[in-house]
């Protein structure tokens, strides 16, 4: 059995469920309360849970993220919402120097069960400072778990799993997904966020992606099917740790890999995935793997320029055709 809802509703329901299940869970962040959440994820929750547990914060990303980390150390289970990953740069010290290091640096005495959610991605003409895709940066850091739910079902299921984690978990929600509708199965426990998921089976090429780019890859795969190319679409879901086995299994089957990532190419998550394919799956390849990333430019405002800067369905189709020799 399943139900249909939006990605936004799935997130909200997940928060509500977590707060009802455990009184130590609370949500804090900019505009999560009275405004209802910048993307309306927490709309209505203030009335339901009150200002202590749906806690509006001042514009102090480092301060309230660090406070979330401290509260986690103090026995609570905070969900910190940083409005967008662009602002998370202001909290990088706390995330990297405290949350990610604490367990190891303290000799295993302390751990930080904090969940930090943030919106990510471009595509809404918000220009250079509001269009970053920084999940790859955070996936660089040992001590963090980085999730990127792309489907409504994952959005519904991931939060509970993240809150069960005794260590810091970052959830990147592509802002273009909030209005997306999808099915959520009744059995959420069956959703395995630790492993990548094949969203479409194929035999000629693996499209390896995550988050907002998943749906571009699904559209591209449909188009490719029309011209006789069978594309497999692998949704990574968890960006750290990467599911190497799933990546290699898909590549071994299709013998061709195209990585689609909204992050920039240089020093990126796509570079990491490609390296691993070369290291672990080189002999299974028929042809060198390829990447489709954002152009190396601050994301521009004008619609046609922004579109040109981001991976698009047509670009994915073209790259895939090149790889399969079509």
């Amino acid at each position, binding site marked *: 059995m399943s139900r249909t809802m939006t990605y936004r509703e799935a997130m909200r329901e997940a928060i509500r469920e977590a707060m009802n299940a455990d009184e130590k869970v609370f949500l804090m962040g900019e505009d999560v309360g009275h405004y209802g959440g910048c993307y309306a994820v927490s709309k209505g929750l203030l009335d339901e849970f009150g200002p202590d547990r749906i806690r509006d914060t001042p514009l102090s990303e480092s*301060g309230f993220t*660090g406070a979330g980390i*401290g509260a986690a150390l*103090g026995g609570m289970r905070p969900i910190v919402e940083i409005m967008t990953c662009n602002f998370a740069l202001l909290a990088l010290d706390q995330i990297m120097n405290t949350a990610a290091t604490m367990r190891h640096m*303290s000799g295993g*005495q*302390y751990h930080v069960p904090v969940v930090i959610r943030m919106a990510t991605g471009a595509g809404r003409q918000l220009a250079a400072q509001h269009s970053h895709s920084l999940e790859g940066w955070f996936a660089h850091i040992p*001590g963090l778990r980085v999730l990127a739910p792309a489907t409504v079902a994952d959005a519904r299921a991931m939060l509970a799993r993240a809150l069960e984690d005794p260590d810091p978990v970052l959830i990147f929600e592509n802002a273009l997904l909030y209005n997306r509708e999808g099915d959520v199965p009744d059995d959420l426990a069956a959703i395995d966020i630790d492993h990548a998921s094949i969203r479409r089976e194929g035999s000629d090429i693996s499209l390896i992606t995550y988050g907002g780019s998943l749906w571009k890859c699904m559209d591209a795969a449909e188009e490719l099917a029309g011209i006789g190319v069978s594309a497999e679409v692998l949704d990574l879901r968890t960006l750290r740790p990467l599911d190497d086995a799933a990546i290699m299994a898909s590549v071994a089957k299709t013998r061709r890999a195209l990585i689609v990532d909204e992050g920039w190419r240089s020093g990126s998550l796509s570079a990491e995935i490609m390296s691993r394919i070369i290291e672990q799956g080189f002999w299974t390849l028929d042809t060198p793997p390829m990447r489709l990333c954002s152009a190396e430019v601050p994301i521009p405002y004008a619609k046609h320029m922004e579109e040109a800067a981001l991976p698009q369905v047509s670009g994915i189709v073209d790259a895939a055709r090149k790889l399969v020799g079509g």
Partner: protein
Amino acid sequence: MTGTKLRLDHDHCRLLLKQMLRVRRFEEKCAELYTREKIRGFLHLYIGEEAVATGIMQALGEEDAVVATYREHGHALLRGVPAGEIMAEMYGKQEGCSRGRGGSMHLFHAPTRFYGGNAIVGGGLPMAVGLALADKMQGKRNITVCFFGEGAAAEGEFHESLNLAALWDLPVLFVCENNLYAMGTALDLSESETDIHAKAASYKMPSEIVDGMNVVDVEVAARRSVDAIREGNGPVFLECRTYRFRAHSMFDPELYREKEEVKKWTEIGPIRRFQSWALEAGELNQTDIDAIEEEVALEVSEAVAFAEAGTWEPVTDLLHDVGAEART
């Protein structure tokens, strides 16, 4: 805040002097061990500032939390972290209080709620706010003490944290250890408003200036503040004016201050001053002081022996504790 009387009898004088001497002698030994290359990395000594942590810790209960900086050997010792575990940590041994992974700047100890050991200036303040928030939300009467230097007042995290703590009425005691230099940059070269305690007023937080070279003054202020905080009156800010007698770290050639200035402060050093006062007041005699020195020397030598006898964490454990074992 209400006045708090402090009974300075023989036992209490002995305790205060001993606590300050524990820190002093322990760190003198650390400096020596550093030159012998037993301790490596950075080593920031608290020598000269002992009255601050000694006085503050007197006001804390067992369930309270402590957040400190990278100059925190004294805070750890005074909080009750065993000296041997601190020394072993500085040796890099796995018997150290952070298994040898943190070193001098990252001492942690869960049994005493000692939360380090933060080597990013200002980085501990948000954590202290969060610990206090957790206590408050769980209905606990604990307070969190957060130590930091005056250099932290230039950081955004300082202002963000003061605002959050005041806005949410959190049980935090902010203790600024103003030793006049942020590494080598004098206060008047880095702050437009050099009166640090005045900054608390912009967050409607009660604050006061304390003579950080006088352990009694610090203890009285700490007890008064902690009582007020525990009553649920929100955070308090203490600016303890003190001075670091030694270099910033063992790498510091001290080009930025005059020898005369250092001399002037050492003459009013916290141990010298309190010891003379206690002798004059007849609360302690030379025999007491000799006995304290002997006890402290024994503790330090046992700490060194513990560290020397310690073992190295096996390299095969390198990746342990990056995350919970079950999830990695």
